[in-house]
């Protein structure tokens, strides 16, 4: 049964009414039929169909849902769709560019960082934003900027991989 691999098939709810919001995600425009107070996380996952962005807490504590909004790392469970309209949203699926993985993704693979991997989309997005603003972060910078929860406890490898990516 091959149904589980239909990742590109986004749900089509357009028969339920007019689209109420236009979102720009990974360079593409999406009309989504959601209430304006819907968290961006759920519009991304359920309406646009990009599931790399994860639900972990819904209260902006854990960071599993981190995306870039106009280049800034934000916890998408705490951003309303109405606040995201007109902004450039990047999810983990849109981080790689021109067919090459982002240097953070490459460092993650080279350092064998993920364990279960569930938090890593958000972790990678948070780190990518950090390195954009601060290309050579110190350990203290990392401690201050990266506050994502990882229950498997990959922090040792996360730190090593951040430094590795910074030195590319």
């Amino acid at each position, binding site marked *: 049964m091959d149904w589980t691999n239909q990742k590109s098939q986004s749900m089509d709810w357009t028969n339920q009414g007019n689209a109420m919001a236009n979102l720009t995600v990974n360079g593409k425009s999406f009309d989504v039929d959601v209430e304006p107070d819907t968290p961006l996380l759920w519009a991304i996952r359920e309406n646009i169909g990009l599931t790399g962005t*994860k639900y972990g807490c819904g209260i902006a504590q854990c960071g599993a849902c981190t995306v870039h909004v106009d280049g800034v790392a934000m916890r998408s469970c705490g951003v309303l769709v109405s606040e995201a309209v007109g902004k450039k949203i990047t999810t983990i699926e849109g981080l790689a560019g021109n067919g090459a993985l982002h240097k953070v993704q490459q460092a993650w693979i080279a350092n064998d960082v993920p364990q279960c991997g569930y938090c890593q989309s958000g972790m990678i997005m948070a780190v990518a934003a950090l390195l954009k603003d601060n290309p050579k972060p110190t350990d203290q910078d990392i401690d201050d900027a990266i506050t994502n929860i990882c229950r498997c406890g990959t922090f040792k490898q996360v730190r090593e991989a951040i430094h590795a990516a910074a030195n590319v």
Partner: protein
Amino acid sequence: MNHMPALNRRAFVIGTAAVGTGLALGLDIPFGGPTVVRAADGSPEINAWVVIQPDDTVVIRIARSEMGQGTLTGLAQLVAEELECDWSKVTTEYPTPGQSVARKRVWGDFSTGGSRGIRTSNEYVRKGGATARMMLIQAAANEWKVPASECTAANSIITHTPSGRTTTYGKVAEAAAKVEPPTEVKLKDPKDWKLVGKGVKRLDTADKTTGKMTYGIDIKLPGMLNAAIKACPVFGGKLKSYDEAKAMGMKGVKKVVKVGDYAVAVVADTWWHAKTALEAMPIAWDEGENAKVSSASIAKWLEEGFDDSQPAFVGNENGDAKAAIAKAAKKVEAVYNYPYQNHATMEPMNATVLYTGDRCDVWCGTQNGEAAFAATLEASGLPADKCDVHKQILGGGFGRRGQTDYVRQAVAIAKQMPGTPIKLLWSREEDMQHGAYHPITQVKMTGAFDADNNLTALRMRISGQSILFSLRPEALVNGKDPATFAGLNATGEAAIGYSVPNLLIDHSMRNPHVPPGFWRGVNVNQNAIYLECFMDELAHAAGQDPLAFRRKLMATHPKHLAVLNAVAEKIGWDKPAPQGVFRGIAQHMGYGSYVAGAAEVSVTDSNKIKVHRIVAATDPGYAVNPAQIERQIAGSFVYGLTGLFYGGCTVKDGRIEQANFDTYNSMRIAEMPKVESIVMPSGGFWGGVGEPTICVAGPAVLNAYFAATGKRLRSVPLRDQNITFA
């Protein structure tokens, strides 16, 4: 209310326990014979463990679940070692429990807990690889019309040594699949391993960095609807009534369904709509007697278990501890406790079900595919050949996903909407408040010394909850829960590392209504804190160095001693610590492995602890992938120290008070100590690696805190004593 163990308690066998029954009643489709068994893409199975595709791709079947611990990669290494295949061409796949039942459990046990994934299956998976290698060689030999004994295999290439002719696994796979499997298979001597023992990279990393990896929460089926659920917040309580019309009037809502007699679910187009409607819907509960229970009432009941007049199960005893304590020159006493803790897997519980009336398919992350399968049969009422479970990579397990409650719920909902796929997802709040909690216990420790400061007796009176009583009552031994004594037993895979002339360790079993579960490390978590912190107290009372004091009691426990010595040496126990830094040490045994830890901490304002460094050692017998073992050690410390500092679930009005990560915190990178691992496999036995080390971080840090402050911390979590990370 609270239950004491009763001899004639009805054995309510669920989950893993039901698997046996489910399988016994399962299908018996004949396999084998002249036809080749084929994988989904048509490639031939050499045997159940190995499929070789024409382009030499090697597909290794993995029955155990991958939840981050690296078992998938380790098991593949074990098969590949004997298969002599090209590691760069290895991929893996999960067989389904339904397929396994249909093939007379050809893949054996699916359960992935107790750090068993590799240690209990290594022999038969290696045999699977070796058998396949012999069949591939035989096929090549047949084609060349030469004796198989003249051929060798390496890197997926078969060579006829005398002639130098070669072929590849991909070319002979079709013929190999028809070769009669050898009856005698000799496994390699561990000293000849080339791939096993190497810290190769995980096989499942790339998709975890791009968002492509599919977890249960990501499943999409055509026409699928989403369900949000709320169970009675008081465990054991019932659903009384709910305002269905209120939910039905909200956007996207398709149906409101009862789930058993204790929960209600809203089904909607999106999960966000389902959750929003569920939260808006008034629900009345019949909370029952359990609503009177609080953390204080549980603590009081547990304290009563210290009374010797209360019945208790003896876990380990030698000499006469009570008599020795009575005539001690000096006596030391202390009471410790360990709380309820939620697993808080990053991916909340979920399962997707398509029930059509005559078939039921489930997609979910599970630590035990067969238990999830058995739960599916039971909840759907359908036979084994009409059901299957399609396992997904787990967004964390830690023991929680060995339970099948979420599978049963999802099937119960889907049954009320035949033909429509339903994805049930728990909110974080539902997940936090309906866990299978680390069991709650207290302990009264007593040590006795003679006039020369020799330890003459040690008494541990544990009072509290049994996991097996609730989850696997059939595993109780005359009412006793042997798992309670993890790391305290006289012998076996979780044996105590000390010899004391008079020893008594017993357990007054008290089972509050809060459901317990297996939580990474399980009972070694509290037992290591109890024993190793108290050993520190005893050393202090005797005026001796904590390491020297332990060593004297460990003369006949060389493997326990070896890991302890290893961490002592690496942390520089004999040399002074840096200015303002203090050290603590601990050792324990669990899951067949010997583990030890030494911590360096500094303390400010007596309540802010900076854990600078932890040195850890483990002897798991064999180390299949040392790089992944190091990651398990460091990761287990995050889970264990999170439990020590933050991990307490408190009970008020019969329910768990904490609801999300704002009140049930988890360590961040800033709080992560440097971890230095010593992986020192001594061979001859197979121990686990996912759990054992977790238990030494806590006591090592607590003992270092004492060294820094002169104060003992005997209650977990530290959060509740206003102590936190610096």
